């Protein structure tokens, strides 16, 4: 007799937990980024999948393969997990062709997380660009959750996309904007006829918003070009490298530090990362 699947998955980190795609949201007008809401088939798996914002999971499509994707939902959202995925390779393309009601698999949660304990009691500056906003969205929803909000100081968000149609989570951005407890700055590189918001690149907006370095930590995720121009802004504002946190991406397979391809120096991005402070990255080799 074979053991129940939830028990096999609990004992074997390569075995995905079955999940059902319960909702698919097309996020952008180019239709190549979708959010997949997944519900665990087995209660035992749902209880075991305890995650912290910043962690990722391997999305597993039998017959196609696996893809490591950051968890976009917050652990404060119960009953499901969400992943926002850009259509890019074999697995993510197959994922984009899926319909609600389909079964697939998830392995995780994997990796470290945003350093929640370190962030507590501090002012948090969240900076995101384009499609790399997913685990930042998880962090924001975690911090503004009723019971959690008082554990964090001022929350400033700078989020940018190339055009209004490429902004993720538009309904949530609107809801956040109506709250009094987030300084929300949404920007697009170039607006359109209907866009009434801010225009400008993320680094420029960061400069204008000029968050104080006092008791503050910034959490930055975005395309390399955005990161490159945003970091000097925060250096100028006086943020130390210990207080600038980011997340790395590398090609991965196992997700648990065995298959040997996502190392940066002695560290595996899958297991020791993906989250590193700039101070930690300075100690690693520049091979990512």
């Amino acid at each position, binding site marked *: 007799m074979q053991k129940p699947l939830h028990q096999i998955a609990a004992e074997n980190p390569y075995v995905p937990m079955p999940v*059902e795609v319960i909702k698919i949201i097309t996020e952008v007008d180019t239709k190549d980024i979708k959010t997949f809401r997944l519900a665990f088939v087995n209660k035992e798996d749902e209880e075991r999948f305890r995650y912290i914002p910043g962690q990722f999971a391997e999305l597993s499509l039998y017959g196609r393969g696996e893809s490591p994707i950051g968890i976009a939902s917050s652990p404060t959202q119960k009953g499901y997990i969400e992943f926002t995925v850009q259509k890019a390779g074999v697995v993510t393309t197959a994922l984009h062709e899926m319909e609600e009601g389909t079964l697939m698999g998830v392995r995780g949660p994997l990796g470290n997380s945003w350093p929640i304990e370190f962030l507590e009691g501090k002012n948090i500056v969240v900076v995101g660009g384009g499609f790399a906003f997913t685990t930042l969205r998880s962090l924001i929803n975690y911090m503004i959750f009723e019971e959690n909000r008082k554990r964090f100081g001022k929350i400033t968000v700078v989020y940018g996309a190339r055009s209004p149609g490429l902004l993720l989570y538009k309904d949530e951005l609107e809801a956040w904007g109506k709250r009094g407890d987030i300084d929300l700055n949404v920007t697009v590189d170039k607006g359109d006829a209907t866009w009434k918001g801010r225009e400008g690149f993320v680094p420029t907006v960061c400069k204008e918003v000029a968050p104080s370095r006092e008791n503050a930590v910034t959490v930055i995720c975005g395309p390399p070009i955005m990161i490159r121009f945003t970091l000097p802004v925060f250096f100028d504002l006086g943020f130390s490298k210990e207080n600038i946190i980011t997340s790395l991406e*590398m090609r991965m397979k196992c997700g648990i530090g065995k298959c040997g*391809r996502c190392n940066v120096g002695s560290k595996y991005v899958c297991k020791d990362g993906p989250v590193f402070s700039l101070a930690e990255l300075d100690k690693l080799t520049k091979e990512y």
Partner: protein
Amino acid sequence: MEKKLLKKDRLSGIVKKMADDKPVYAPVKDEDNVLFKILEPGMEPLISFANTKDAPKKVFFPHSELLMKYTRSPKGMVFAAMPAGEKEFVLFGVRPCDARSFVLLDMLFDQEKWKDPYYIDKRKKGTVISMACVHPPYAACFCTSVDGSPTSTQGSDIQLTDLGETYLVEFLTPKGEALAPYFAEATAADASAEAKKQAIAEQSAAEIQRKIPGRAIKPILDVSFEHPFWDTIAGKCIACGTCTYLCPTCHCFDISDEMKGDDGVRIRNWDSCMFPLFTLETSGHNPRTSQKQRWRQRLMHKFKYYVDNFDAISCVGCGRCVMACPVNIDIRKIVDDISKLQV
């Protein structure tokens, strides 16, 4: 643990007797090579050989391995079954360098936080019988430079040492002792046998003339990632990956899916840091685009990263990569050269 003496001409029969009861992997002649294979009736285990062409890590970490099976359902692809569990088996005729590789691989696959159940299951089921090197088999041997020795018992459950007329049989672990009934005809070893082994150990280690500063280059590697030296090592490398495939400690793998009709398997296959595709991302970005970077990765992984993470050099000095490299890249020379770098 117990030590016995066995008449040399009895060994082959004992191994074949084991093979009647359970799978026994042993070195066998295969055309021009000596390879580890499961002994089938009529096959002769090699008792006298230099070393195998392939490293015995493949027994615990196969070249290609089934992870799970799945099948189509009305709601999509779903899990079907795990591979059948491993039976108890014996791995006979392992050289001490290769036996040490198991200890090094245990550090990675059997970590506290993430355990690799496929590897661990096979390690639990397999009993390792090693053959001490009375004389180092190759000029390329350098085990003594990477924390090993030609008579090291690390990673062995039983070790056999050729004392001339007899084998000294050392039962090193409970798993090894469980095979003692097969050696029932062996007699108790006395102090003179142990003294002989000690003499062989010293003599054999002394025969390895080639020394490299295995541990000493670590502090140099810590500060030389950007050193121009790396530009000089990979020029003739053709990225064939032979070094990594023959290496007893290389553990990188790929996971892939294969389907036939409505059924499929997820398997893992050995992969190699020598290949450009190894780190190529979907976006097109590749953190290691040049063979120089890939060679640096291989060297660093063995002599720095593994030391950082596990305080062990991920090289056992078997010499396979030195002997098999089609363009004669010699890792010993590279390590030598690194030790002389001005940093």
